[in-house]
């Protein structure tokens, strides 16, 4: 080392210069709960049980999503549609109980891919909120089924091209 390097001082002053420049730089921090950053059109967030165009629940309680789920977070109880309930459920069989354990869920999206009826989706615009109590963990139909005044439409032109992710506009017979 040269004498200047052994004196440490020039290097220390250089380092102090670098850090003080960063002191006055603009901070890239996003103030999270108040300001949220757009996470992209293919983000997998809060689950939603879709309704079709007439507002009927699409889920037919086939159980494929529960089979596909690697974390075994999904459980459901099937029931048969009664007369007069045609406006509520699209198929003759529906899920009377549909529960997702959010502590187990790893948000992999395999349920979304497994669903033959395009009924379960992971929203790209909303996350599962933080929970502090154990009884807040299991999400039932009251929190999963799409609200009629808050329909979920994914604006995802790229995703349309991929065969694994059917679009919402595609009608299923």
């Amino acid at each position, binding site marked *: 080392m*040269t004498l*200047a390097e052994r*004196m440490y001082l020039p290097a*220390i002053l250089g*380092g102090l210069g670098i*850090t003080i420049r960063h*002191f006055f*730089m603009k*901070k890239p921090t996003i103030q999270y709960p108040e300001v949220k950053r757009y996470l992209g059109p293919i983000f997998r967030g809060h689950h939603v049980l879709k309704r079709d165009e007439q507002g009927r629940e699409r889920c037919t309680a086939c159980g494929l999503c529960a089979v596909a789920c690697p974390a075994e977070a999904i459980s459901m109880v099937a029931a048969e549609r009664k007369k007069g309930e045609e406006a509520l459920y699209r198929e003759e069989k529906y899920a009377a109980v549909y529960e997702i354990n959010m502590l187990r869920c790893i948000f992999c999206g395999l349920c979304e891919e497994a669903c033959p009826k395009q009924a379960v989706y992971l929203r790209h615009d909303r996350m599962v909120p933080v929970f502090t109590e154990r009884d807040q963990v299991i999400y039932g139909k009251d929190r999963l089924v799409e609200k009629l005044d808050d329909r979920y439409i994914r604006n995802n032109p790229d995703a349309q091209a991929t065969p694994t992710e059917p679009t919402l506009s595609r009608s299923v017979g």
Partner: protein
Amino acid sequence: MELTVLVIKSLVILAVFGITLLIATYSTYAERKVAAFLQDRIGPNRAGPFGLLQPIADAGKMFFKEDFIPAQANKWLFILGPCLAMLTALMSSAVIPFGDSIRYGSFEVPVQGIDVNVGVLYVFGVVSLGVYGVMIGGWASNNKFSLLGAIRAASQNISYEVALGLSIIAILMMTGSLSLRHIVNEQNGFFQWNVFTQPLGFVIFLTCAFAECNRTPFDLPECETELVGGYHTEYSSMKLGFYLFAEYINMFTSSAIISTLYFGGFQYPFMHQVHDALVDSLGSTVGHNIATGIGTAVLFGKIFFFIFFFMWVRWTIPRFRFDQLMNLGWKTLIPLSILNVVLTGAGLLFDKFKYATWLIVIVMIIMAATNAIKAPRRKPVTVPQL
């Protein structure tokens, strides 16, 4: 008459005590904010506006944690350790002159805890006691890492105290007094500040102050990678809080002492003109007191700058290795400070010339520059092609 002086004096002492604690509290907040800003983050901003209530939240958390004493520890010494650390940290701000004086009726009370004529030595005495808190705590924990941290702290503090003391002797020679108030009063006029008359002494003193406060780059006693937590490995709750708090109080005190010894204390350029103008316009009591207030504010500005500097350095420079620390202390700083003393003495004997130590600085810069020019250029590192 006695009573009024006593009341004002005790008010001054209480104010110094309270301000020390307040500044130490908010230093923890400032440390986190400065660290964040130097690392392109924002830092604590949730508790209160701009996170200003964060220190209070931290203190509350500290108080409610479990106060744990290890089974094999020496109980009384374990408790004594943090108490001593806190006590010695708080004692040293007693002799710092925070301002000129307060006039009240016919009395004139200096803004200073006690004005002893051995002020500098008092600070040294208290600083040299500071290591006991660390040593006793580290030994009483009955933990090898704690003991090693304590031993490191002791050896580091003893080593750097020598250079610290020697670097001040030059100032004492120029002032001819050990009283901090004399040293401040001697520095009237901007270029009379000791940082201009003693540039080398200032650098040595600053380095030693970092080492004495156990701050990065010399925070080896609590080096996490080698010693878990150093001397406070076994401590929890407010006992740990006392150790950490004592560090911030030490930082405040050493900033105040650096400002007092080298940056003119409560002096600022054109102080006498401002003082005379205030006395002329507001009367000799009110005007004088306002001038004292301005001086105190200026001193606190300097102190805050140095606290910031402590943090700035902490988040810039990595930690020294222990042999590097000892080499720097014994083989570089002590010889340099002795040279500083000798040259200052020569300059003072020869026509009271105060700026003699610039000679060392100039010679060192020239040597470094020629050495850097002569040194063989390093080849840029080339990655061998696979």
